[in-house]
């Protein structure tokens, strides 16, 4: 079937309406206005009208945004200088009390001194969803075209030069045939394409692989964050309160920790980040989080409260050495897509914002020079390295690498590294997270024996998925492409025990036993777009691609 596609011409195309790209768009419009103002004043020709488009797979701006989150305001202050004033930006509260605990099975020990990376004085507790909706409105008001429900399906190339993105087809049935309301994806052609798809972007993955942008960097490393919002009957945990925990229930081979943040309106936001480089194939991040809540300290905190939302999302925690090449001809990578998150501080919003702004500064130069090759776009990488983001990422460069060898080594090395400004005797080499997973033989029994779901404090996965308000049109092809189902049934069952059923926090993967045969069923409509499967599958045969536009979770106020 040949499909006739429309072409839409834009100057700048941004894929993904997250903090990085919206900051890029907003900053770029500001820069262009300033440039044109200067040009007019000097009697020079201003730039022609620059069309900026942001495409986003979610049904509305912000719906797929999930983060803790504590915002370091450093970048946003430059983008929107008065954002803290007159309640302009939707901030929950400035960070107030801060504690870090090490949990044992029943007890807890408070760290006597807050480790500097976890000090949040001067930062804000925010809902990323709210912040992004606000930023999206600002962009639209500035004339940026934002297109929700339009995922990027393919990168368009001319040779190795990126010339735009094809949006996803709509109205394809589950067998891949066009439905009566079929609407083919559009080729959006642009001078510069910016990929800000968030963690493990599906186009970014294509691009990195095709242009070999990661030959000089370490494999990317990820964690997955499982998060719930709770509405409390009283103000026991005031907005701005911050707690982090380490230790239980995670084993010493598993990187991670929890956060508990106080939000407005008596809402507690808590979650557990679990390193996607654990060993035990039975490990289930959702179950770890449920277990975490049964700790007396946490259970007591949540007593009388009510679950109101659930979500999950991976995050890139590998840091400095895992950052791929971020610019090539016609294209740049920003934010989490470029692994620009500070894993040591558990913060990626301010780095994403900054990367978007620096990309915008570079794009302006490209527009003026009318040169969109790596020659000009590559300046973005240099800018990033010189910026505060580059400096803080460099300082934390060995953080996760140390944990690659287990928690105890990690804590020790992280301590040394902190004291030495990031220096270690030698650079630690790491492997990709999924390579840490060990065969099932070494792990017997039920890892979560005794974990019960009482629907008050703890919830089964499917119940939680309901609270993510996830929706996909059922009549479409699964957007989780398993390259070879035989591997699942023949090898994986034996070797790892089909860990996709465990690591997926949304019950997408299910081994079904039917008439004596096993097969993998993919309940794609549950998918919360966290990307864990694409990352953690031990054979790397799961390819996460974008579903029909509008599908996915709705992380309102998350």
């Amino acid at each position: 079937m040949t499909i006739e596609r429309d072409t839409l011409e834009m100057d700048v195309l941004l894929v993904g309406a997250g903090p990085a790209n919206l900051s890029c768009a907003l900053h770029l419009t500001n820069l262009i206005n300033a440039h044109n103002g200067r040009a007019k004043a000097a009697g020079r020709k201003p730039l022609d009208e620059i069309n900026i488009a942001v495409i986003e797979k979610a049904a509305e701006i912000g719906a797929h945004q999930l983060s803790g989150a504590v915002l370091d305001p450093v970048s946003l202050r430059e983008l929107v200088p008065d954002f803290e004033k007159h309640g302009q930006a939707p901030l929950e509260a400035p960070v107030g009390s801060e504690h870090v605990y090490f949990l044992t099975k029943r007890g807890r020990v408070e760290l006597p001194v807050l480790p500097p990376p976890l000090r949040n004085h001067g930062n804000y507790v925010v809902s990323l969803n709210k912040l992004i909706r606000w930023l999206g409105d600002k962009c639209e008001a500035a004339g940026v075209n934002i297109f929700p429900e339009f995922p990027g399906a393919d990168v368009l190339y001319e040779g190795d030069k990126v010339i735009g993105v094809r949006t996803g087809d709509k109205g394809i049935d589950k067998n891949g045939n066009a439905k009566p309301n079929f609407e083919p994806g559009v080729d959006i052609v642009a001078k510069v394409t910016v990929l800000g798809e968030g963690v493990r972007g599906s186009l970014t993955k294509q691009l990195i692989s095709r242009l070999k942008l990661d030959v000089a960097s370490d494999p990317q490393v990820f964690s997955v964050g499982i998060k719930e919002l709770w509405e409390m009957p009283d103000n026991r945990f005031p907005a701005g309160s911050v707690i982090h925990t380490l230790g239980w229930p995670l084993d010493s081979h598993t990187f991670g920790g929890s956060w508990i943040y106080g939000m407005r309106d008596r809402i507690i936001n808590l979650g557990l980040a679990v390193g996607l480089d654990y060993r035990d194939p039975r490990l289930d991040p959702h179950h770890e989080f449920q277990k975490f809540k049964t700790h007396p300290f946490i259970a007591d905190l949540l007593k009388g409260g009510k679950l109101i939302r659930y979500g999950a999302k991976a995050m890139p925690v590998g840091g400095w050495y895992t950052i791929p090449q971020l610019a090539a001809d016609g294209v740049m990578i920003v934010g989490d897509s470029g692994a620009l998150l500070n894993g040591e501080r558990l913060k990626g919003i301010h780095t994403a914002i900054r990367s978007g702004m620096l990309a915008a500064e570079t794009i302006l130069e490209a527009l003026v020079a009318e040169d969109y090759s790596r020659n000009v776009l590559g300046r973005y990488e240099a800018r990033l390295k010189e910026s505060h983001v580059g400096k803080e990422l460099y300082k934390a460069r060995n953080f996760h690498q140390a944990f690659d060898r287990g928690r105890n080594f990690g804590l020790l090395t992280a301590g040394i590294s902190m004291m030495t400004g990031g220096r270690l005797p030698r650079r630690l080499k790491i492997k990709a997270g999924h390579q840490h997973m060990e065969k099932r033989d070494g792990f017997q029994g039920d890892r979560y024996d005794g974990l019960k779901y009482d629907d008050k404090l703890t919830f089964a996965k499917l119940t939680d998925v309901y609270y993510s308000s996830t929706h996909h049109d059922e009549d479409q092809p699964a957007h989780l492409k398993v390259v070879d189902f035989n591997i699942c049934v023949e090898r994986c069952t034996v070797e790892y025990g089909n860990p996709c059923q465990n690591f997926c926090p949304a019950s997408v993967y299910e081994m079904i036993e039917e008439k004596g045969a096993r097969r993998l069923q993919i309940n794609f409509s549950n998918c919360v777009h966290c990307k864990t499967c694409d990352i953690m599958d031990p054979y790397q045969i799961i390819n996460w691609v974008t579903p029909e536009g509008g599908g996915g979770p709705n992380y309102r106020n998350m």
Partner: protein
Amino acid sequence: MNIVVCLKQVPKKDSILRIAPDQKWIDERDLSYEMSEADAYALEEALRQKEKHGGEVIVLSLGPERVKQSIKEALAKGADRAIHLNDPVFEQATDAPAIAKALAAALKNETFDLIFTGLQSDDYGYAQVGLIVAELLGVSSATIVMEVQPEGQEVRVKRELESGWFQWVKVPMPALLTIQSGINQLRYATLKGIMAAKKKEIRDVKAADLGLTAEDMKPVQTIERAYLPQKSKQTEMLEGKPAEVAAKLVEKLRFDARVI
């Protein structure tokens, strides 16, 4: 042929609804919105009629600023222009007569052949706003419409009756039709449509423009209390692994319900 589509924006279908602290309505802080389902079908039907017979599709919507999102969606799908009854005065129009009064007032100066509404909204579900508009404007009406065939000065519609019965009815135009959900397949908004929609007119109309006052918008029925439905039955929830709940249920079906 000119068709007016009355569009209502409602909380998304998958929304987790909570009761507001005053227990008179839901907590709206936490919600995403969309076109009410039947209204989306009404819009689609209007666009299809326009494609067949020409003319203009005019979207009419009442609600706060957020409603613009649904209006823009309608324009992106192909509606020609929109009228947005956007005024704090309209916020107290919470019952059907008040809403209908405002909609009818806005249509007094429009020329149209047909008005489409959804058969009922997904929020209040009054199933009466359309008909009150028809009564106030003195135009004919037909409800729960499955198919629309304009024939000269009349429109022939297939109405759904109960229990699998249907009936064709002819009414003179102008007429108001309430459209059943699922009668056509909804189209997607295209990128070009979205771009084109930016240039289409959305006219913001205030109550005063229509000669309406707060007194006119006063509802004649009010919600005294909103609450989660009380269970009319004591539901016994069966818990456990699939095999366990299956065994428990079969036990109940055999010995309590006695159907096995």
